[in-house]
C-alpha cells in the first residue's frame, strides 16, 4: 500500500489518468455511433494505418501524434471516397485497406530501419504520456467534443436513415466525412492510451455497456463516456498495483464492466 501512496505522488500517473479520461470522454459518444452504425471495422482499419503514420512522422520529422492524425484523416477521406465508387462491399474494402496499411507500416519500419517500440505502439504506452502529448490530446479532444455537440442532431438523423435525412436537408456527405474525421482524430490520440490493437475495444465496449442502461441516445453517449472513464481509472489502478500493462488492463476493466451491465435485466 505504501508503494501505491508513493506512486500517487508521481507526475506520470496523473498525466496518464488525464490522457485516459480525455480519450474516454470523447470515445464514449463516438463509440455509440460506431455501435449504432456498425462501424467497428472502420475503427480497426483506421487504427491499423496508425503505424504507417508513426513511420511517416519519423521520416518527415513530425510530432508522432500529429503524423498519425494526418495519416488517419487521409485514410478516412479515402474510405469515404472509395465507399461511394467501389462495387465491393464495405467489409471487403475495409479488409483490403486495413491489413495492407498494417503491412505497409511494418515493412516501412524495417525498410528504413526505424527505431520504434512496436509493442508500445500495438498495446499503448499510457504511462509515458508527456505534458506535450497531453496538450495535443486535449486540443484534439476539445475539437471532437465541439463537433459532436454542433452536429449531434444531424448525426442522429443520418444514423437512423441516410435518405430520409438527405431529403429533409441534412448535408449527408459532409456529416459522413465529419464522423470519419472525428474517428480518425480519436484514434490518433487513443493510440497512446491503449495502442493500435485495442483502440476499437475502447470505442465499442463502453458504448455497448451503456446501451442496457439507456433509453435515449444522449444518455447512452454520456454513460459510455462515464463507463470509459471508470475503465481507465480501474485499469490504471490495476496497472499500478500489479504492474500489468496499462492499455490491456483498461480494456479488461471495460470488459468486466460490460459483463456487470449485462447481468442487469433489459431496459428498453
Amino acid at each position: 500500500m505504501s508503494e501505491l501512496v508513493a506512486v500517487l505522488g508521481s507526475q506520470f500517473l496523473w498525466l496518464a489518468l488525464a490522457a485516459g479520461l480525455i480519450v474516454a470522454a470523447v470515445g464514449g459518444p463516438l463509440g455509440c455511433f460506431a455501435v449504432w452504425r456498425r462501424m467497428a471495422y472502420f475503427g480497426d482499419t483506421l487504427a491499423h494505418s496508425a503505424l504507417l503514420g508513426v513511420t511517416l512522422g519519423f521520416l518527415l520529422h513530425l510530432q508522432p501524434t500529429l503524423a498519425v492524425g494526418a495519416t488517419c484523416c487521409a485514410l478516412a477521406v479515402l474510405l469515404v471516397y472509395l465507399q461511394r465508387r467501389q462495387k465491393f462491399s464495405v467489409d471487403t474494402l475495409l479488409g483490403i485497406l486495413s491489413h495492407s496499411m498494417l503491412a505497409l507500416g511494418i515493412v516501412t519500419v524495417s525498410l528504413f530501419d526505424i527505431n520504434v517500440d512496436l509493442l508500445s505502439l500495438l498495446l499503448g504506452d499510457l504511462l509515458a504520456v508527456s505534458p506535450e502529448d497531453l496538450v495535443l490530446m486535449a486540443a484534439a479532444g476539445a475539437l471532437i467534443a465541439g463537433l459532436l455537440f454542433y452536429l449531434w442532431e444531424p448525426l442522429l438523423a443520418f444514423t437512423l436513415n441516410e435518405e430520409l435525412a438527405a431529403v429533409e436537408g441534412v448535408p449527408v456527405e459532409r456529416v459522413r466525412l465529419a464522423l470519419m474525421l472525428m474517428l480518425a482524430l480519436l484514434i490518433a490520440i487513443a493510440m497512446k492510451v491503449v495502442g493500435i490493437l485495442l483502440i476499437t475495444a475502447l470505442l465499442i465496449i463502453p458504448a455497448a455497456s451503456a446501451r442496457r442502461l439507456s433509453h435515449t441516445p444522449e444518455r447512452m453517449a454520456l454513460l459510455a463516456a462515464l463507463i470509459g472513464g471508470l475503465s481507465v481509472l480501474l485499469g490504471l489502478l490495476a496497472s499500478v498495483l500489479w504492474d500489468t500493462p496499462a492499455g490491456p488492463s483498461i480494456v479488461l476493466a471495460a470488459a468486466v464492466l460490460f459483463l456487470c451491465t449485462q447481468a442487469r435485466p433489459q431496459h428498453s
Partner: protein
Amino acid sequence: MIGPNGAGKTTLLRLLLGLSRPTAGSIHRRPGLRLGYMPQRMQVDASMPMSVARFLQLGQPGITRAEADTALARVRAQKLRNASLADLSGGEMQRVLLARAASRKPELMVLDEPTQGVDVSGQGEVYQLIAALRDELGCGVLLVSHDLHMVMAATDQVLCINQHICCHGHPEQVSRDPAYLELFGDKLAPYSHQHNHAHDLSGDVLEDHSRCNHDHSRREPGHE
C-alpha cells in the same frame, strides 16, 4: 406511379427527391418546396435507444412535444409515443414515418411503396390515412405502389412506367390504355404482364417490333 419490378419507379423517385443525379435530362423543382418523404422501409438497429416521440422531434426544432403527439394522433398511433423505434413492427413503423412526413407540413408528400412490410389487414388503413392526411394538409401526394386496386380507386393521376412512360393520365383513362392493358392485363393482376413491344437489355424500346401498337416516337412529357 405504377409499373412492374425493375421499371425504374424508385430510380425516378430518387431523382425527383434529389437523392441521385440524372445522367441526362433535367428536373425542375420549385425552390423552397417543402417535402415530406416516407422511405420504403426503415430499419433501426436495436442498439439505438430512441423513442418514437423523440424521433418525431429529431432535427426539427420547430416541432414541440404537443405537435409530435398531434402528428401521432393523426395516424392513430398515440400509444406508440414512448415505444422504442427499434421495436416497432412494419406497419407501426410505416405509420410513424407517415406521422413524421406529415409533421413537416409538406407541400408534397413522397411515398415509396408505403404498404411494404405491412400485413394485408393494415394496408387499407395506411391508404386511408394517406388520403385523410392529404385532405387535412392540402398537399400533393406522389406515391409508388404495386396495389393497382388502390391506385385506380384513390388517385387523380396515374403514371405507368416501364423504363419509359407507357401511359399516363386519369386512372379511368389509363386503365383503358392499350399500353396499360398489355402491361398489367385487364384483370388488374399486377405481375402477369405481357409486352406488346420488346425491350432491349438497357430497357430501350425496340422500335421495329411488329406487334407494337402504341407510339414510342412521341416524346412523353412528364419528366418532372
